[in-house]
């Protein structure tokens, strides 16, 4: 892959904050990146082996796009928006059609590929989690959640949803989706992002949960020893242990796991990204500080590319929003920096 000293800037970035990024699955040759934004659009770029990015296409919603995902075969992109709809974008024909409807903005969308069914899962601020066969206007299933969906992740057969008021629900997806367990939050602040990780046998076994308080919890579903195995760590904070100035604590905006190494990346409102090894419980790297928060991130299917978006996340409120400020998506060579450390304990 490309190996350069500075991170590559993606051409033609969206005109407003980027809410989500997703790389194409391994079933497709090459790397295609989609990014949704608050400009109501979702764009698709081809990322070539030399690092060049080529804008390919885009689709629009009638409200900001909050999440997007790929089908497992890479032929479709699903997008979720504040306009309360989700769309299926057929990339071959470049046509998009609505496949889901909620009573509130849809915050999370994921494709589920089970042996006996395939569907789209949408989590909304209307406190429901719905599952859609894309051919039918009515949901296959609708599950009530205790609160608004703030983030979700799916790694078959497991799904995790984190909601407002620090709600946390695990679903199992075998045969059909059902609620598996509600978990008391390991964090004391608002949930913001969640990502499932897998064990050495490549089965989902737990998740990382990030909050607005610069902290990530690593939580296993069925650990041998929860007290020892589950833990939290602080991240995206400033000022170290200097007692004279207060420490600034930033939200964790997104978490992504490296598909090969199992190490993770976190990006925060402080404008930095960090790489971590959750098994060795160490930090691998923290980036320099960008001048805008980092709002989204993702790895490509083989873990060679780390994409992250630099745009305003509203963490300082409306006053700090500058619509003229350019938004960026960067690509970084991730092949080396996310290798795990040797276990220390």
């Amino acid at each position, binding site marked *: 892959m490309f190996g350069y000293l500075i991170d590559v800037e993606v051409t033609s970035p969206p005109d407003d904050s980027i809410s989500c990024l997703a790389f194409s699955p391994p079933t497709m040759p090459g790397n295609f990146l989609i990014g949704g934004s608050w400009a109501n659009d979702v764009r698709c770029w081809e990322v070539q082996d030399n690092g060049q990015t080529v804008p390919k296409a885009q689709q629009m919603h009638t409200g900001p796009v909050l999440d997007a995902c790929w089908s497992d075969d890479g032929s479709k992109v699903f997008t979720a928006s504040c306009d309360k709809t989700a769309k299926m974008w057929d990339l*071959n024909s470049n046509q998009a059609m609505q496949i889901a409807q909620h009573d509130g903005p849809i915050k999370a969308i994921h494709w589920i590929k089970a042996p006996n069914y395939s569907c789209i899962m949408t989590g909304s601020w209307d406190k429901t989690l719905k599952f859609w066969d894309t051919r039918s206007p009515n949901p296959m299933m609708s599950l009530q959640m205790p609160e608004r969906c703030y983030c979700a992740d799916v790694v078959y057969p497991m799904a995790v949803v984190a909601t407002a008021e620090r709600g946390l629900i695990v679903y199992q997806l075998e045969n059909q989706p059902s609620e598996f367990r509600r978990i*008391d939050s390991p964090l004391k602040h608002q949930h913001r992002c969640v990502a499932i990780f897998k064990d050495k046998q490549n089965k989902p076994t737990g998740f990382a949960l990030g909050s607005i308080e610069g902290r990530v919890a690593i939580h296993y579903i069925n650990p041998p020893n929860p007290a020892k195995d589950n833990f939290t760590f602080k991240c995206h904070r400033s000022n170290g242990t200097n007692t004279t100035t207060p420490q600034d604590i930033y939200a964790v905006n997104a978490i992504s796991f490296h598909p090969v190494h199992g190490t993770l990346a976190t990006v925060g409102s402080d404008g930095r990204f960090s790489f971590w090894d959750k098994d060795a419980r160490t930090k691998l790297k923290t980036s320099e500080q960008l001048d805008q928060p980092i709002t989204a991130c993702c790895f490509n299917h083989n873990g060679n590319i780390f994409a992250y978006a630099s745009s305003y996340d509203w963490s300082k409120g409306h*006053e700090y929003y500058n619509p003229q400020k350019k938004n960026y998506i960067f690509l970084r060579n991730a092949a080396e920096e996310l290798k795990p450390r040797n276990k220390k304990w």
Partner: protein
Amino acid sequence: MGRKKKKQMKPWCWYCNRDFDDEKILIQHQKAKHFKCHICHKKLYTGPGLAIHCMQVHKETIDGVPNAIPGRTDIELEIYGMEGIPEKDMEERRRVLEQKNQETQKKKQNQDDSDEYDDEDEPGPSFQQPAAGQPQAGYIPSMSQPGMPPGSGAPGIPPGSYSGHSPYRMIPMGGMLPPGPGMPPMMAGVPPGMPPPVAHRPGITHMAQVPPAANMLTRPAVPAATVPSAQPDVTKPLFPIAGQSQQTVSGSPHPPPSTSSDPSKPTFPAYTQATVAVVSPNSGSSTVSKPPSTVTSKPATLTTSSATSKLIHPDEDISLEELRAQLPRYQRSVPRQAQSTATAPSMGPVGGMISPQQPGMRHPLPGQYGGPPQGMPGYMPGGMPPYGQAPPVVPPGFQGAPPRPPMGMRPPVMSPGGRY
């Protein structure tokens, strides 16, 4: 352990009030958190030692012990492990512990078990080990029991999502849940918000916190509890497959009583507990261990939660996206017909990539929107894109919103001095 006898209680750090199992660990903690030079990261042995080091080596004075809670920052007190703690603080500590034990039998102190990772790879987080005998919860049956209280479950789930019966066994928390599938009178006496002993360890025993919620949901219909198997190996399935009767309970030496239930709670106790559990004595390090309600207490946009830290987040309990979506400029745009006059194509310097006359590129102004949702073919000329070109298509069927007059989103401007 330690160099002198412990003063009849678990070692604790005078600077930040944290508990430790072992005085050695306490000392490691103090060296790392309180006696570490912020300039050169050298670990000293005492507060005065750190002060002297900073003065001599860096020519800098420090005014307090790092990461100490207010009132405990005295740099001149020579404290090492448990030695040097003023007697009155020891007394106070004993009293507080007594109080805690008495009034909150079932609550344990919340432990912030994270030490920030740094490149020096400090020893793993210091957990406060849960009291012995806390069983782990095994698999909880899927929440598809009939007759669930409203709002608690998923009404959309047909019962029997696991082939009509649940192979899951319920492992209720010992001590809280008496045996028997009925409604034991003891349950009625439990206040709805009262968590079982293990529930207050959000940082630690997450497994253990599940049963209260599960108890409520898994009604007496759930079969009797099972015998837990030995420690599982890594290859056990995450969720037991329907039809298998194998026990895939994560190891717990504590034989659980049979199923009990807690029918009367209309809401998930886990959530009310979670908010209660937030109160944490541990604020010595620069963590912000405050209850979520504090976030909304101040009118300013930046919430100052303590003297040592500040959360960079608007002072409201909703998410950043919800806050942002309230703005008029992000309200639902009106689907429009294709415009012949283009709004400025905003694909930036990559000219020609997206043909400029395509409508719907962008809506730069609030309330205005440049086009219906449609395909946007824009390809590198000469390339071989995998996606074929296609004419724009109006989505069939599901129109998100009824068509509205273009400027209908804004109410008419009020005439001055009048009302309309």
